[in-house]
């Protein structure tokens, strides 16, 4: 990591994500930078302005499916009438072998929401990476007498739920006992007077970007975005970013009213630059979305740059069809919109979200 830069964690949603999955979202942010030549130096990439940390948790789902497939494969056929072991074997092997389809059909949603041990492992993986990065970056800043860096997390789809749950646990859990704290820091007792009361250590995430937010329906713990301690929200600022026709956002409850904090910022986009409007990169390409990330984390992105992005966001190309779909006829455009509306069902249940995911991927021809 380059010293002295703010940090953006990226967290993926459903589907398969290999190492380097963040290439597309980062490319979308870099493409966004080109819209503001007066704010960024020509030819400089995002990593000159911002440290991006990719977080991945879907290999935990792979592990579980692989082990089920192993168990199923080792099971012999029973004697007698109903061959129940073959049925179980078929089902579990299918889930393991056809992992891509399983993931796209929303199987990841079932694994995360249905199995507490799997969800916990995913949350701990995320929290471990976030906590260690915060320590490393702050340590470096203090050593160099710099201002402490800012940390934000942009999560997508199922990732919004995982992020809310994980960070809630990180911020509200009693991870460090007073004894451990005392052992780690001999000045702990004197520091106690001015630092947080024992029982919790804040995360103080500077920004949480929930892109295609599913957390209202799927969350398993509390909402990190709403977590307060001594009258202060642990998360300094939160954005809920949704496409008005994204079925996952609709079924995930992103547009439903809720007991949200008063300063939560809702960003609603309506552009169609590729068929898969749910795609993380498709969201990040929009000026109304990336300007919030740039403004918070990139010091060079001044108030004037932010204003320019806000103006751009109102342009017709960012309000309707453009990009890969710019040449589409009215009929094709209406057809896609109709398909997306059909895929969205407003039932607030994890199973319905799984159904909506399946319908959505079928509608855009990815299944």
């Amino acid at each position, binding site marked *: 990591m380059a010293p002295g830069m703010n940090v953006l964690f990226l967290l993926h949603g459903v589907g398969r994500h290999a190492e380097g999955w963040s290439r597309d979202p980062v490319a979308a942010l870099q493409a966004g930078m080109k819209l503001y030549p007066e704010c960024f130096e020509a030819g400089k990439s995002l990593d000159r302005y911002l440290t991006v940390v990719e977080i991945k948790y879907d290999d935990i789902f792979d*592990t*579980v499916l692989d*082990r*089920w497939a*192993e168990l199923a494969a*080792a*099971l*012999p056929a*029973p004697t007698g009438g109903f061959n129940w072991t073959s049925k179980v074997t078929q089902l579990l092997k299918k889930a393991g072998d056809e992992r891509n389809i399983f993931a796209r059909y929303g199987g990841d949603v079932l694994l995360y929401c*249905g199995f*507490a*041990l*799997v*969800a*916990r*492992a995913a949350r*701990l*993986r995320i929290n*471990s990476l976030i*906590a*260690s990065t*915060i*320590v490393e970056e702050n*340590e470096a800043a*203090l050593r160099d007498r710099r*201002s*402490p860096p*800012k940390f934000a997390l942009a999560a997508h789809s199922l990732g919004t739920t995982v992020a809310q749950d994980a960070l809630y646990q*990180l911020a509200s*859990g*009693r*991870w*460090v006992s007073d004894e451990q*704290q005392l052992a*780690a820091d001999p000045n702990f007792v004197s*520091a106690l007077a*001015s*630092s*947080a*009361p024992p029982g919790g*250590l*804040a995360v*103080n995430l*500077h920004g949480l970007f929930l892109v295609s937010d599913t957390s209202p329906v799927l969350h398993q713990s509390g909402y990190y975005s709403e977590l307060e301690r*001594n*009258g*202060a929200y642990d*998360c*300094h*600022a939160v954005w809920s970013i949704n496409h008005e026709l994204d079925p996952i956002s609709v079924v995930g409850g992103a547009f439903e009213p809720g007991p949200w904090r008063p*300063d939560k910022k809702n960003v609603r986009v309506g552009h169609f630059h590729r068929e898969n409007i749910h795609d993380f990169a498709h969201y990040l390409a929009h000026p109304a979305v990336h300007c919030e990330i740039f*403004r918070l984390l990139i*010091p*060079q992105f*001044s*108030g*004037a*740059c*932010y*204003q320019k992005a806000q103006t751009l966001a109102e342009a017709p190309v960012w309000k309707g069809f453009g990009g890969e779909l710019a040449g589409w006829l009215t009929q094709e455009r209406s057809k896609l919109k109709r398909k997306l509306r059909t895929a969205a069902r407003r039932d607030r249940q994890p199973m319905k979200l799984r159904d909506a995911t399946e319908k959505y991927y079928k509608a855009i021809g990815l299944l």
Partner: protein
Amino acid sequence: MRCAAIVFFLYAACAGAAELRGDAIFLCDALRQPSIKSSEATAYGKLADALAAAVGNERTRPEVARFLAVLRNPQGRSFDVAPEGNTEKIFRSVPAETITISCAPSVPQYLVEVATAALLAERIRIEHELPAMKTRAAILEKASRDAEDLLKNGLAMWPWELWLNGLRLSDKDADPLFRTQWVVLRPSAGIEIDLRSQASADLQASVMLEPLGFVRYRGDSYAHWWGASLVVTSSTNRGAGVGALLRWDNYVIGLTRHKGEGSEPDSTFLMVGVDLYDLLNKKRTELKDWDAFARLRSAP
């Protein structure tokens, strides 16, 4: 030198977010000079005194008074200064107490002092909390490793076992992971050996079902365990058997009782899991090989 000046000018003209640069502060796109020095920021109380002196009569303004009050009793509060639109905000995480610094047209000097004190206070907070953050990161690393080790190395769980064992978790991830895993309605393959008719080498392939049992993990990586279960077996031609088994890692051994048909007496079977059976077979082959080798060597 001229190049450096141009670069600095360009940077300054574009820069947005507040940050400390030596004893100066970069705030609202300009480098500004506060009277507070970073050397005064050794503790919250000292910093509050320095700020009170720096702002003079402005200390009675509600936002300054509020800031000073928090600075004297911070309770872990973050003092981060963050940009939003064309403003900089202090205490953004407390909407009712947020201090908004408008970046146009000019920034009053007392707000420059407050912003400087905020950035210095944030540094103090991080310094105080860093040891605890480090401990937390180390604990999390271990907890994360344990959670994944259980799924990767532990006794593989069928979906219903995974679900049921998950119900035993506390709702706090900070609580340690269990070391005892329940076994419920667990099917697997095994071999049953009739202890009454060993002469005929009566081996029966069997499907075992463990209605209830447990394993207890030993060691660090959830890779080793021992356990016990009740077991029901269904072998190819001796009907159902009922018994108990013991488990050591992947090796399973147990005894089952099968009812005799008609006038046949009941039989006791030794039940062996597939892994243990494979191991025993392998050992037996190795021994045979060794015997053959020994015979060859001793041959005249």
